[in-house]
């Protein structure tokens, strides 16, 4: 009997730990701001490296994602360290490029290239279905 109680208690404790950690993780996600920048002039891979290098210097930025063809750069950082649009403009200009647009979000951005791929996949699958239907 006491063994069963101990088992149940340990299961409950495990569940509580998992729930607690997931809640903490969610809290960590909501404490970040996601930034999408449209940067003009990124025409070569070395350009992207130059831009990435400068964006990584922003305090709080861990990852920089650059999509060359779309001219987009994505970063995320803690809400307490969010740079202003003017700060970002200066950083991009210093790197040798032109900042056209900035978007801030509490949620991660859907990547244009991956969305494009998904759209083309769904188009292909719907075309296949159509052709199978006909």
């Amino acid at each position, binding site marked *: 009997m006491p063994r069963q109680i101990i088992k149940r208690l340990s299961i409950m404790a495990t569940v509580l730990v998992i729930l607690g950690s997931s809640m903490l993780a969610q809290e960590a996600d909501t404490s970040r701001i996601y930034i999408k920048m449209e940067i*003009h*002039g990124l*025409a070569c891979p070395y*350009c992207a490296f130059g831009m990435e290098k400068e964006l990584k210097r922003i305090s709080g930025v861990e990852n920089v994602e650059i999509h060359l063809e779309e001219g987009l750069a994505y970063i995320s950082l803690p809400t307490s360290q969010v740079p202003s649009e003017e700060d970002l403009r200066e950083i991009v200009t210093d*790197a*040798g490029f032109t900042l056209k647009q900035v978007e801030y979000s509490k949620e991660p951005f859907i990547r244009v290239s991956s969305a494009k791929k998904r759209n083309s996949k769904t188009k292909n699958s719907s075309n296949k279905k159509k052709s199978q239907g006909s």
Partner: protein
Amino acid sequence: MIRLKYIALIFLVHNQLQAQGPPITTETPIMLGLEGSAIRTFLKITDSGDGQLTRWILGVPYNIHTNFQVGAILPYTWQNQNGGSTANGLGDISFFTKAMLFKRDGRARTFRILATARQSFPTAAKSLRGADQPEIYQTYLGLVFGNVTTRIGLYGDIGYRLVSSKLKDHFVYNFSVGIPLLPVRYPQKQINAYLEFNADHTLNGPANLVSLSPGLQFIPGRRFLAEVSYSLPLTTDSSLNWSLLSGIRFLLN
């Protein structure tokens, strides 16, 4: 001729063109941002009627401002002349600057014009320049321009080289077309193909050198690049048989 046809074919048929790197024998108009620095080094073997000349060049550019770059070029030279005489040593050191004059950026494209100046000093040993030859100071003033997109890079530079000691000045121009052969992604793994046209006219002189230089460039990651280019003379009034350039570039910081 067949080789040239193959090169032309690559440029014409390729329609899935993506991002490419800096040209090999033409100046690049892209200066990579504040405090950006790099190292370029290459070995150039030139075979001419006089013999064979091998030069190891080390170039170090540094951006002191977004729109202003300075740098130094250090050459080491090995000479093997047809008569059997050989010599080697440090060549003429030069310093250069590049300043942005015009920039128009678009999505995944840029058009830039730079002014450039280069000054070389006669640091080469007497054995390299010939005992009867004077010490030469050379001043180059020119423009660098380029329209670069992720699909194709069109580059050019044009300039005038003033030579001291009653020697004749030069009019120099280079043009380059570069296309990437692999799909774009960043961090990149890319192979770029280049076709470059190089000209060096000695004013009122006999030695006009016009050559065509196909080249390949391999970029395996963010910071490193390897390249090779082969030059064939298009004119018959120069003694150049061929030249081969093989080198690497590193991005620092």
